[in-house]
């Protein structure tokens, strides 16, 4: 797959690459459909309900029906909204969500672009989504959307700092920002063991980046009606929802690669193909998301910021320090 990018451009390999991207899009859409289904099922089970069970066998077509309904809805726009920005915002939110998937190595061969700075690319691109959210909040010309949008911007920018800081530990250990090399460096032991502190910080910060419980303040249903997308309906609203779940896909893939050893098998079980391992670890993270959502209440807005700056960031910095010291000692920097 990767060598397709290196070849000289011809109609054939451009078509092939576009086709591969469409396949990835379909896979992601399928994931989103059934992630929502399982989210509702798992949360239902945890709340002693049975979850969706009416549409199709076992309710499997529930999300399909929901999406069909969304697409058929009228595309409303508030009268005093900023027309251009209002239309641009969902695109701005969704495009980077799909863009980050380009550098994710699903196995050692299935990867779209083998960037040397894969981690940086992911973090940088995912920052653009904040812009989409804030644009949506502003363009809607509604106080609830604006509050939601600004909260979201504050939250996502603040939590990006500990997120990046927690990844630095992994980058230090590997000596590379290439996602493939990061996975291959975990041959002996997955990063979750030596980088456990970093893993915890990453987990919490990722939760805030994804705007999911307990950090779902931007769309706090009970306080802000729905946050930045109150005024959106139909297709545009579906784009925001899609962006959110595609980010969950991306973040699940990233945490699998950075800390859970990507496609590497548990020693002794290497006869199972790498992609299965990847999906297994990835599903574990996604399940954890649903589990957390069924357990946690929402954080208070004033606690949110202080938790990021006074709680997570020092821990992340400490993790970097410890990692740096240990690596220096291993390299013998303190002897000569």
């Amino acid at each position, binding site marked *: 797959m990767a060598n397709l990018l290196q070849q000289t451009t011809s109609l054939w390999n451009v078509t092939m690459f576009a086709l591969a991207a469409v396949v990835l899009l379909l896979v992601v859409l399928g994931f989103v459909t059934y992630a929502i289904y399982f989210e509702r099922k798992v949360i239902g089970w945890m709340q002693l309900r049975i979850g969706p069970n009416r549409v199709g066998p076992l309710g499997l077509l529930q999300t399909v029906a929901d999406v069909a309904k969304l697409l058929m809805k009228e595309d409303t726009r508030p009268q005093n909204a900023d027309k251009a920005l209002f239309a641009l915002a969902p695109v701005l939110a969704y495009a980077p969500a799909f863009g980050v998937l380009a550098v994710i190595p699903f196995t050692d061969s299935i990867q779209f672009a083998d960037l040397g700075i894969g981690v940086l690319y992911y973090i940088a691109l995912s920052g653009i989504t904040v812009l989409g959210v804030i644009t949506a909040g502003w363009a809607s010309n509604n106080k609830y959307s604006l509050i939601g949008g600004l909260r979201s911007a504050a939250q996502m920018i603040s939590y990006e700092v500990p997120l990046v800081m927690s990844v630095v530990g992994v980058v230090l250990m590997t000596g590379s920002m290439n996602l493939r090399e990061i996975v291959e460096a975990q041959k002996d032991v997955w990063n979750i063991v030596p980088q456990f502190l970093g893993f915890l910080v990453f987990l919490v910060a990722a939760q805030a980046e994804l705007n999911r419980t307990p950090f779902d303040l931007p769309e706090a249903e009970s306080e802000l009606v729905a946050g930045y997308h109150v005024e959106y309906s139909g297709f545009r609203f579906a784009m925001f929802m899609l962006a959110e779940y595609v980010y969950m896909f991306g973040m699940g893939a990233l945490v699998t690669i950075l800390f859970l050893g990507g496609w590497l098998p548990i020693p002794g079980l290497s006869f199972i193909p790498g992609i299965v391992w990847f999906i297994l670890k990835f599903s574990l993270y996604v399940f954890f998301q649903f*589990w957390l959502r069924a357990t946690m209440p929402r954080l208070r807005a004033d606690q949110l910021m202080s938790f990021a700056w006074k709680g997570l960031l020092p821990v992340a910095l400490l993790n970097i320090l410890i990692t740096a010291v240990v690596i220096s000692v291993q390299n013998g920097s303190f002897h000569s």
Partner: protein
Amino acid sequence: MLGFAKGLGYTFKQLSAKKVTHFYPDVPFPMPPRFRGIQHFSPEKCIVCNQCARICPTECIQLTGKPHPDPEKKGKIIDTYDINFEICILCDLCTEVCPTEAIVMTNNFELAAYSRDELFKNLQWLDDNNTNVREEN
């Protein structure tokens, strides 16, 4: 930190716990024995005393009687008996006042209909509504 683990452990246990969902439209919902549902009317017991129609607070019961077909016997028998369930409040007064228990409550309660006309139940319908009749009236 321990609280987080505790909470997560609790929700995880709930995952396989017995669900409390009732499968209501698929499986009938058992109502408590004194539930006030749609009335059952047995014409052979009725003595056309009109008490039910008079006590009804919403005046939703209309009935007419006719002379007994056997000329030897006194009194009347019921001819038509209609309850308008658009306004019936299922207050139980008609069944309480009935001296012969000709009108009694059942545990049936499904009255949803597409047309208001369907809510106008006649003698035949109320006679046939003889399932889940309440034991004590």
